[in-house]
């Protein structure tokens, strides 16, 4: 079935770009950004380190140390750019793939592994880093973010909320409801959609007939499309949207146009549904290579710097691996903890009964649940 394209769909969408895939700086009248050499080097370092953590996690999954991993490969610039735009007071609501944003919020990468290793379902304190727990059900967190932003609004606080989601999530009712809520309450929230072109096996065309950023206008707030593989542009565009939110100008939808270079998760096999040359084309737009080219061309970094970052990445990978393997398995009674904030007759009784049952085995809890 071929649907007739809606009016306006054929107009080429404007893509905010400040750094080309070849590493050339581009000026933009609305979104220019001044970055010192040190800042650019720091962004480069972040990009490389999160890619390394991600690769290590994929390897850990392949070796049976993680049950699953959702790789961010290819989306580093979207995440580091937007993540670095946040202030400490801002709050971020991630999906399960925002390892780069977590990095920007100083969440220990090993804490991200807990849920994928199966030792917990989340495991970090969202308030410690103003980085909420990963959300697995698609799009649910957009409403949490808007509610949080409404709280910020009621507090009279100078802070913004950012919420991450993907192209597939834009089909969810919750995401559309969150757009409505944010719009009518003028909530200080930034919707950061990483359009990585694929929702597991479904291409963007299965989710939308118009560019995603254009959805915003129907809800009554601005939508912008940014080159999601351009860390400068992602930083600049997100900064502006967050500043608008903080100053009472309401929500913005940012569509970061990027590409999921890896599988949806380690359980997925993209060779079943997409052609190899698509990936090859996107490799030319790699988010890290263009920053490296820019640093080289402008003599803002030398080989020693790049070698040092690579060495740091290797050390980080090793450290993450070691500490992942050291993550202790939870004790059986841990599953009864935190179900409720305080005592709960039934949960408490079941904990007690199960521990008594385990104690009846020779060797106690260690052998009681052998499968």
């Amino acid at each position, binding site marked *: 079935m071929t649907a007739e394209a809606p009016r306006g769909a054929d107009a080429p969408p404007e893509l905010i770009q400040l750094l080309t895939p070849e590493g050339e700086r581009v000026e933009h009248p609305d979104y220019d950004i001044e970055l010192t050499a040190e800042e650019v080097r720091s962004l480069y370092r972040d990009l490389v380190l999160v890619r390394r953590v991600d690769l290590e996690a994929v390897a850990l999954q392949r070796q049976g140390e993680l049950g699953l991993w959702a790789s961010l490969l290819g989306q580093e610039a979207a995440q580091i750019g937007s993540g670095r735009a946040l202030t400490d007071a801002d709050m971020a609501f991630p999906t399960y793939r925002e390892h780069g944003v977590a990095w920007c919020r100083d969440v220990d990468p090993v804490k991200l592994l807990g849920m994928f290793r199966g030792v*917990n*379902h*989340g*495991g*970090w*304190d*969202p*308030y*410690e880093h103003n980085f*909420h*727990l990963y*959300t697995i*059900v698609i799009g*649910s967190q*957009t*409403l*949490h*973010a*808007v*509610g*949080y*932003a*409404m*709280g*910020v609004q*009621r*507090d009279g606080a100078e802070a913004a909320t950012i919420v991450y989601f993907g192209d597939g999530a834009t089909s969810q*009712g*919750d995401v559309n*409801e*969150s757009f*409505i*809520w944010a719009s*009518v309450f003028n909530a200080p929230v930034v919707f950061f959609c990483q359009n990585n072109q694929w929702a597991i096996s479904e291409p963007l065309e299965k989710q939308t007939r118009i560019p995603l950023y254009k959805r915003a206008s129907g809800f009554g707030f601005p939508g912008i499309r940014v080159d999601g593989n351009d860390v400068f542009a992602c930083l600049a565009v997100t900064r502006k949207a967050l500043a608008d939110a903080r100053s009472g100008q309401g929500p913005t939808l940012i569509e970061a146009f990027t590409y999921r270079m890896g599988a949806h998760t380690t359980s997925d096999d993209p060779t079943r549904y997409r052609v190899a040359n698509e990936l090859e084309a996107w490799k030319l737009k790699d988010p890290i290579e263009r920053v490296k080219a820019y640093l080289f061309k402008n003599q803002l970094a030398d080989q020693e710097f790049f070698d040092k970052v690579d060495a740091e990445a290797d050390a980080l990978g090793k450290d993450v691996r070691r500490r992942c393997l050291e993550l202790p398995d939870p004790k059986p009674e841990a599953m009864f*903890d*935190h*179900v*409720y*904030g*305080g005592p*709960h*007759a*039934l*949960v408490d009784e079941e904990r007690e009964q199960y521990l008594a049952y385990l104690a009846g085995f020779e060797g106690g809890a260690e052998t009681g649940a052998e499968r």
Partner: protein
Amino acid sequence: MTTLTLAKAVNEGLRRAMEEDSKVLVMGEDVGKLGGVFRVTDGLQKDFGEDRVIDTPLAESGIIGTAIGLALRGYRPVCEIQFDGFVFPAADQIITQLAKMPLRSLGAVKLPVVVRIPCGGGIGAVEHHSESPEAYFTHTAGLRVVACSNPADAYTMIQDAVRCDDPIIFFEPKRRYWDKAEVDLAAAGLPLDRARTARQGTDVTLLAYGPMVKTCLAAATAAEEEGRDAEVIDLRSLNPLDLDVITESVRRTGRCVVVHEAPVFSGFGAELAARITEQCFYNLEAPVLRVGGFSTPYPPSRLEDHYLPDLDRVLDAVDRVFAY
């Protein structure tokens, strides 16, 4: 003492909770200017403002999802789901997010969200306005589920629910909204997770909650004429369950009938019957019997009197536990 309808008692309780803590918010469809379709939130927006009594867009998932976000920011939202049958669009946010987020944060996050749901039938309503969805929620770990049956409890239970740091599904028996009773506005009431013996008796225990408590009390009065002294327990809290009060009663009476509007099959009464059988086996003179809705969707209102347990169907079950 003040005479209040159940609806007004919830209203007074909410008002008290909002005065006590400025973080308490009321949100839902038509809760502001209109005061809710049952007028439970009447006058609150006028007195507490639009920032605290929020008329929301018409989307239930959005109500609960944004309430979670507000709770994450330190607020204590009280959400109104307009009718029982409208809670299902919010089921994902309630079951997947609200119930589980505190555990997922290893206790760092508290979600003191109250979800008020007018429940049950008996008001001649159209489809989806007369349902009893409590078992869906008692089956979800992380939620507390309570049901008030009378104005005095409604007044204190809603305040206790707002003070509680766990998410709570708060059922209000809509056909009892207009029932009046004396309410002591200074009384603290029973703790939220405790059952209440609504009528003492020695021969049979009737277990009920929400709208069926009144029905069971009427049945107990009628049974008295036949020389049977029925005890009526108002569960008040379905999760957690105050099992001590229940088992103490059944061990004394040796007979038990569970009554609810929801379908009997896989209904909350099944849980009660199983637990009572486990814990009171040697004291039981008869199996625990259940009276409730049929295994059909809630019928058109012209048939609802056949579907809803009434005094006679409760008495019939009482006869059967004695005849066993």
